[in-house]
């Protein structure tokens, strides 16, 4: 098929001769669009200009704090919160998704209840709840459930620091969203793949990890990337529970020096850097997992392999 299309286009190239002039095509002018472009550009430049030259926006303060140690510590906490809660979130998501697709109605109901609850209540509420867990359970212990003997006990307030509460809230909430994403991914894989695995005696776990999930990645990765980028910014919510992240430290700084706008700019610049890096990474990972956009070089090599385009001859 490929060779046919090349032949046709070659035929077109060979012929251009005298027809070239007669067949020339020009674009129709679109004055309306030019006006729109001019207005939009003017407006954007004017907006940027007024902001940049605004004397109340203290560029010197921004410059001073952009690489400040306190800010960088907050930045590092934000990165940690994002990475850890995404990893825990995807583990929870896979478990919940598998439960949702199980044959047992009890497991399905428990999994649905999980997503129902954690997607149905505000993350802000969940964060404050985890931070105040001691009000509900003053001690945490490991042992026999339902009032049985306990092996170890901790004071909840000692365990649940702002960072731990932030991780709990973000991961558990993320798990609920990832569960839906993973489930859609698993369901996108042809059921015949599972049967093929079963027919050679593979276990459910091997089928999931070696056959289903690798193929589900194509569907999982784009929304996962969006969740990741969203999480980079969502971490700022933990400022309400003293999470020590980028937003928290920025707030602490401006509450002391009243440079509110400047410090919000500092934080925003870092958030933009993080989301930009993540977007670029997402772009490359998606391209790797999407067969429709495999690099041309590889497609060409595949087509050049002997026997590939000459299916009939192989018989």
């Amino acid at each position, binding site marked *: 098929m490929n060779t046919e299309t090349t032949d046709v286009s070659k035929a077109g190239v060979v012929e251009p001769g005298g027809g070239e002039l007669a067949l020339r095509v020009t674009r129709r002018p679109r004055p309306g669009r030019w006006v729109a472009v001019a207005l939009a550009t003017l407006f954007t430049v004017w907006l940027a200009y007024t902001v940049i030259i605004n004397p109340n926006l203290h560029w010197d303060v921004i410059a001073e704090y952009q690489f400040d140690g306190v800010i960088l510590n907050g930045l590092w906490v934000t990165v940690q919160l994002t990475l850890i809660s995404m990893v825990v979130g995807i583990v929870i998501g896979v478990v919940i998704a598998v439960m949702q697709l199980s044959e047992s109605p009890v497991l399905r109901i428990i999994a649905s209840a999980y997503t129902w609850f954690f997607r149905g209540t505000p993350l802000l509420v969940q964060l404050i709840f985890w931070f105040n867990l001691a009000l509900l359970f003053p001690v945490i212990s490991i042992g026999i459930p339902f009032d049985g003997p306990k092996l170890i006990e901790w004071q909840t307030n000692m365990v649940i620091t702002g960072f731990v509460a932030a991780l709990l809230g973000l991961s558990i909430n993320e798990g609920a969203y990832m569960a839906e994403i993973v489930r859609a991914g698993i369901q996108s894989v*042809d059921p*015949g*793949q599972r*049967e*093929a695995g*079963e*027919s*050679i*005696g*593979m*276990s*459910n776990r*091997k089928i999931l990890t*070696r*056959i289903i999930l*690798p*193929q589900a990645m194509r569907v999982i990765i784009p929304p996962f990337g969006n969740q990741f980028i969203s999480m980079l910014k969502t971490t700022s919510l933990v400022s309400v529970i003293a999470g020590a992240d980028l937003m928290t430290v920025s707030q602490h700084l401006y509450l002391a020096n009243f440079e509110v706008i400047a410090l919000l700019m500092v934080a925003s610049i870092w958030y933009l850097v993080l989301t930009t890096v993540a977007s670029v990474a997402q772009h490359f990972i998606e391209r790797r997992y999407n*067969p429709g956009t495999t690099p041309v070089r590889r497609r060409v090599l*595949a087509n050049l*392999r*002997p*026997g*590939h385009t000459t*299916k*009939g001859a*192989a*018989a």
Partner: protein
Amino acid sequence: MTDLVLRARGVRKKFGDIEVLRGIDLEVRPGEVLCVIGPSGSGKSTLLRCFNHLERIDAGRIWVNGELIGYEQHGASEGTLRERRPRDVRRQRERIGMVFQRFHLFPHRTAVQNVMEGPVTVKGLKWAHAQRQASELLDRVGLADRADHYPAQLSGGQQQRVAIARALAMEPTLMLFDEPTSALDPELVGEVLGVMRDLARSGMTMIVVTHEMGFAREVADRVIFMDEGAVVEAGRPDELFTQPRHERTQAFLSTVL
């Protein structure tokens, strides 16, 4: 009984209220090639899938190599069976190869990796050993030079031959084929049937659901005709194709021959 590869007694299967298998009895001897023919919806695929417990059955018994498939005796009463532990079901499936109409190769693995998957992850074979064995099998189905191709880079006929090699890699004692050539362009059917013919000659016990009457006539030791969930007629291919005794068999054959 023990010298039968497969024995089925009174196998019944319902999907909801519809009974798609209504008491199937069948015996397959070692080295025998049994072809199953019949109209669409007659339950051929379902029966095949019961043989390696991809479907649960509602009544009856299936033995492969003398072992009850998918179920075990439960309690004192003869009549009650309970489903086996998943581990036992898997062990039984290992020795029953299955080839699907739409191949179901693992698209993220090359041909040789597809063939190695079972030996490595199920049997725990050493990688190098499994690879050597897989290469031999690919050679046997005429695809030695395609070992490193992904399924998407292979023609349908080549994919189905890889699928046959993948099933053979588990060293099955029984091979089940569910319309292995129905999804193929006509010019690719021959290469797959050729591999199956060689397999039959090598003494493999095979149950083949097929619409390829030429193949059934040439290779099968016995042909059964199924309709509406029951075996209507069984016999040697030369008899069944030339002098079908049953009216429904005659009607079916007149539409496909």
